Each structure stands twice: as structure tokens, then as C-alpha cells.
């Protein structure tokens, strides 16, 4: 009887201790975590930093270093006649459209060997937007009244964002995807490397050249290559699959912004694509804000 009473008492005490320990241990460890995390938040780290500033963009003389054999042509600078451009005006920080046109004219001379004597460049100002948070000058170049080239220049720094040639082939050629070329794009890789080195597309030694995609525009089938520099810069070069001619170069800044934007969009899509709880219901994408 006495033993049984002692057992009951012992059992009650054990249960009480067990419940207390089970309840108290998370609190104790939570407390430790709070302490550690608070200490972690109080920490301040020093990060030694050296900024690699491109000498070309910082030197006041940069704008006056002309391509070999270049002479300023006599071309007219106009404005693109679209509401979109009329609604956006450059600010005090932006260069004048004539300065931006001249930067483009030099690039066209160097890359496409184009003399703009007597031709017209129409300029349009673009404010910074999310996918490209830099204000820039867009230019359409008219050769004999026909829009044949275009380029984009950073309206503040004068950095060339992109340059392109527009042509419409009047031949019946296949615009289809070339799987053989996709599996063996070596010829274009070599061509891209050669021209990227020649025009210093990534402002330094080239690390790699990779095939990216195939497409077409204006009846002209094309192929795009990614050029990566050892300095981390990344550019896109598009060639015609018809005659291997260089069609466009997208320089590092807009390319990087575009890739970052694509990454953000993908992330947002993943967040919105919530799987349905009901197994019988097909998964669907929620409307994006």
C-alpha cells in the first residue's frame, strides 16, 4: 500500500519533470538562438573594395579619340517623329542628341564601315525603365531615306549600348531553325570571337563565346552568340545565317540588365505559379500585377 502510494507520487513527479523539461528546453534554445542572432545582427564587416572604372568613360579626352581613318561626315540630326519620344525630354545630366549621334556615327564607321555623308540620323530620348534603368538616346539611321541602321547610347556617359543593321532580303531562303547548326555552331563561334576581338566588344580579353539562339527578322535568318569577357562583361552578337554578315551587337550593360530582369521575371512567375490544392484542378498561373 505504502509502496504503491510512493510509486504514484514518483510517477506524478516524473511526469511533471518531463512536461517541464519538454516545455522548457525549446524556450531555452530559443533564447540561445535569439542571443546568437542578435549578436550576428550587431556585427559590422569591412569589405575592402576597389572600383574598376573604365578609363574610356572617365577620361575627358575620351570623346575626342576617333576611330582610325574617321572623319566627321556631314549628316543631319533629327528627331524621331513618334509620340512616345515626344513625351520624353532629356534632363541636365544628359548629353545633347548631336553628341550622342556622333558617338553612334563613329561606331557605325568602325563596325559597318559606314560613311554618313548626306544621310540622316533621327534621335529619340528614352528615360530609364525597370528593365534598363539607364536613360539613353536611341537613333534610327536613314540611308537614302531608308531606315538601315540603329544604335543606342547612354545619355549620361555616352556608353554604346547597342548597334544594329536592318535589311530585308529579297531572296527566297529558309527561315527555319537549323538543328545541325545548333549542334555545331563552331563556324559562327570563331567568327564572333574574331570580330569581338577586333571591335573590343567586351573591353578586354575574351573568356568564352557560346551559341545562344536562332531566329529571323526581315526575311533574314539569324544566329546569336554570347561573348563573355574575362572582366565579366557579356555581349550579344547576331549574324545572318544567309551570308554570315554581322547584324547587331548588344553591349554588356543592357545585356546584363536584360538578364537580371529575366531572372526577376522568372522568380515572380514562380511565386505566382501556385500549385492547386485540389488534385483534380489543373495548375494555373495567377495574374501578374
Amino acid at each position, binding site marked *: 500500500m505504502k509502496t504503491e502510494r510512493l510509486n504514484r507520487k*514518483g510517477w506524478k513527479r516524473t511526469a511533471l519533470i518531463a512536461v517541464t523539461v519538454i516545455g522548457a528546453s525549446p524556450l531555452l534554445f530559443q533564447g540561445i538562438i535569439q542571443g546568437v542572432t542578435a549578436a550576428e545582427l550587431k*556585427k559590422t564587416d569591412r*569589405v575592402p573594395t576597389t*572600383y574598376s*572604372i573604365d578609363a574610356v568613360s572617365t577620361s575627358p579626352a575620351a570623346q575626342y579619340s576617333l576611330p582610325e581613318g574617321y572623319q566627321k561626315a556631314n549628316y543631319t540630326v533629327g528627331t524621331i517623329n513618334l509620340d512616345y519620344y515626344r513625351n520624353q525630354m532629356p534632363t541636365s545630366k544628359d548629353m545633347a542628341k548631336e553628341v550622342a549621334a556622333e558617338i553612334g556615327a563613329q561606331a557605325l564607321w568602325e563596325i559597318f564601315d559606314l560613311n554618313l555623308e548626306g544621310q540622316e540620323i533621327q534621335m529619340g530620348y528614352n528615360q530609364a525603365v525597370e528593365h534598363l*534603368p539607364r*536613360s539613353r538616346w536611341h537613333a534610327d539611321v536613314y540611308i537614302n531615306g531608308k531606315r538601315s541602321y540603329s544604335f543606342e547610347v547612354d545619355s549620361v*556617359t555616352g556608353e554604346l549600348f547597342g548597334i544594329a543593321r536592318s535589311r530585308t532580303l529579297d531572296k527566297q531562303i529558309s527561315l527555319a531553325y537549323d538543328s545541325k547548326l545548333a549542334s555545331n555552331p563552331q563556324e559562327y563561334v570563331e567568327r564572333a570571337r574574331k570580330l569581338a576581338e577586333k571591335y573590343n566588344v567586351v573591353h578586354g580579353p575574351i573568356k568564352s563565346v557560346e551559341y545562344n539562339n536562332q531566329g529571323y527578322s526581315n526575311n533574314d535568318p539569324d544566329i546569336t552568340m554570347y561573348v563573355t569577357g574575362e572582366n565579366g562583361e557579356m555581349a550579344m552578337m547576331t549574324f545572318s545565317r544567309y551570308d554570315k554578315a554581322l547584324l547587331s551587337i548588344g553591349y554588356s550593360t543592357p545585356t546584363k540588365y536584360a538578364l537580371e530582369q529575366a531572372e526577376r521575371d522568372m522568380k515572380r512567375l514562380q511565386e505566382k505559379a501556385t500549385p492547386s490544392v485540389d488534385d483534380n484542378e489543373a495548375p494555373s498561373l495567377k495574374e501578374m500585377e
Partner: protein
Amino acid sequence: MNYFDRNPKDGPQVGLSFEGKPMKYRTFLTTLMLFLFFFNLGILIISITTFKDTIARAEEKSLGEHYFITSSLIKDFYAVENRGIDIEDSLGALLQPYSYLSGDKKVKLALYKGNQIVYSDQPQNIVKSSSLELDKTRDRLVSSQKSEGRTYVMVSGKLPAPFDDYTMVYFYDTTDSIAAWNQMKNMLFLAGLILSSLLAFGLLLLLNRIFKPLTQISHMSRSIAAGAYDTRLPVSGQDELSEMARSFNHMAEEIKSQIMQLATAAEQKQQFVDNLAHELRTPLTTIYGYAEYIQKVVCTEEDKVLATNYIMSESRRLQNIAYRLLDMATLRENSIERGDVCLEELVRGIKQAMSLKATAQDIKIIYECRFDMLFCDADLMHILLVNLLDNAIKACKPRDIIKLVAELEGDRKVIFIQDSGKGMSEEHLDNITKAFYRVDLSRSRSGGGAGLGLTLCQQIALNHGAELSFSSELGKGTTAKLTFTSS
């Protein structure tokens, strides 16, 4: 007082309590505490690791974006300056493009010139001035700050020369990430709490099962201590617990056997003492009585002679008892010296000893020997066989026949002494080798018998490694059989 302190009043404790309960509870609590410690330590490590990882990723992203913005801003500064435009007038326009980063309201920018804020896209100032006290090594500072219930990773760094009087400060709101981490941590602890409770319950069940045999052993020990030697533990399976139960049962069996032997021995000793006292009392009373008679009564010379004769015969009987007891003690304690004895010689000696008595009783003894040699102590074997024949003569009436047959039974040597006397019951057969046991209670010791004959025979047989057994049938006679286990 400690819960586990033992109270001496609670009874004997041998390593565990009498009931085994505190040990069970101690094991339960110790195991539970160990589990909780390591389990929560695991959660703690995971939580701190994920927290550090969350902060590290936020800091890495912040450092990357701060570097990118600063690099771009320097280019802008150079470009604007090269065009002869005052930077400070264009700060808003130059920094505005980077507001895209705060599209998700997580990034905030601020630009300081010295300690003066010259641009900010945030309503409140959450920068500690200490963050701006950077040395000239152009180190950037990265830290976490709390402001108005929100947590930010802050990266601040001076712009390189010639714009090093400007400091770019970048804030990345990590409140949601930390809230997510906090939720994960709390979920882990909640899961831990549930699992711990389940473990505690499971552990208690397991320990109940493990300690059940110990409790049973405890109960059984007390039962055995109380004299219930037939109590046994149930045995099932082949695990250590079953093995322990088996061992304990074996121990209980041995204890029972030993206790039975001790009880039997004690009983025999008590009976021996009782019988000895009884046997001594009669002759001593007789001796005292006759001595008193001689002393106090005026008696004739003839009466004196008669009384002294009685005294002498009773004394002789006491002497016999003493000698026999001494013989038995000597036989028990000393090993005998055996040798090959010619059976014919042995039987001749027995004939000489018994013929007179047998003739006087008109009883015929027949001797049949079917082997030649016997490995024994000749004197002790003589005593044994004479004792058996003497008992046989006492059980026989005139003209009865007693047989002494020595023969081989298989490869064993056997000696029978068979009489055709009155025989005895089964009950008597079990007791005839006990000291002072009398089959015929009415029979006096007048014959001078000490009542130790068969006890002595049994002892001699044991010393020879032989087995002495009796078989009898009332009215038909008794057979004593001596079987030698060694040749």
C-alpha cells in the same frame, strides 16, 4: 530533498529500489533530457546556420548591387563633370534610374556628402552616423540594422577619388526573409515539441516493458524470501531479458534445491538429536535409579550384584552408542583405504561372527559367492555385512533361512542379504537407515543395540561408492542389496 534521494525507511535497496521504479524514472528522465538536448541542439544549429545563410545571401546581394550602382554612378559623375555640368544639380536625375531596384519596396538608397544627406529615396533616415565614419582604405561597411520594426542590411561606402567626399548607402529590407526564417524556426521547435512528447510517451512504454521483468524479479525475490520457492518468472523469446529470466529461474531452482537439502539435513539432525536424547535418557534413568537404589535402600548382596549388572549393561550400551557415533564421525571425515579383498576370506570371517547367533536362533544362513575379489576395506565391509545379517536374524523366526549372495549384475558386483522374516512396510523402509529409528517401537534396546547399525551401514556403503537399498514385503521377508559402482 532530492527526488532521487533514498529514504532508508523505504526498505532494502540493492543498486535499484525495491520496486525498481526510481531507476525507471531516472532512466526515462535521463534519456529524455539527452534526447531533448541533442534534438534542440540540432534545431539550434540548423536555425543559426540558415539565419547566417539568409543574412550572408542578403549581404552578398547588397554588396553586389552597391558596387554596381556605385560603379555606374562614378561613370555618370565623370560624364556629367566632363560636360561641365555641376554634379550636385544633377544628383536626383543621376540617382533616379536606380529607383527601379526599390520596385519591390525592399531597396532604399541614400547619398551623403560628408555627413549631409544629399539624396534619399526613403522617407525616414535609418543611417547611423557611425556607419559613415569610414577610413581612407575605401573599405565598405556591411551590417544589419533594425529600424521601426524592420530589419535592413546596410552597405555603405565612399565613392572613389575624386568623389570620395560622397558616401553611397544601400539598404536592403530583410524583414520578410527574417520573418520567414523565424517562422521556419518556430515550426521546427513546434515539431520538436510534438516529437519530444511522442518520444516521451514511447520511451515510457518501452521502459515499462524493459523494467517489467525487474519488477517481476523484485516481486519474485520477495516471494522466495517469504518461502514460495516454486515461484518462477515467465520466459518468452530469446533476448537478454528472457536470458535474465531464465538465469533467475535457474537460480530460484538451485535455491529451492539447496533450501530443501538444508531443511532435510536440519530435520535429520533434529531427529538425530531427538533420538539420541531419547536413547540416552532410558539407560541414564536406569543407571541413576539403580545407583540410588544401592545408595538409599538396604538391599542384599544378590540385589546389589543384580543392580550393578544392570548399571554395567546400560553403561556398555551407552559406550556402544558413543563408539558407534565416533565410528560414524570418523567415517565421515576420513577417507578409507580400500584394496582387493578375497571374497572367500571376507565371508569366512562373517560366518565365524554369525554362526553362533544363527545357531542359537535356529536360523540357517546360506552363502553363495559368484565372484572372487572385492575392492573394499575388509574390516568396514565385515562390519556392514555382519550388521545386515544381524538385522536379518532379528527379523526372522526359528527355522527361517537367510541368504547372502554375492553375484555380478551386468558389469557391477552386487551382494544380497535376503531373509524370509516378517518384513516391513514401505514407510519403514524409507527410514530404517536413520539413526536410532525403530521399526518395532515396542522393542527395547535390551539386546544392547545402539540403534545406529543401518546408519553406520549406509555410511560405509557411501564411503565405498556403493549403493545400499532395501526391498521388503510384509510377512515375506526383506532383501538388503549392496550395489558396487566401482569394480
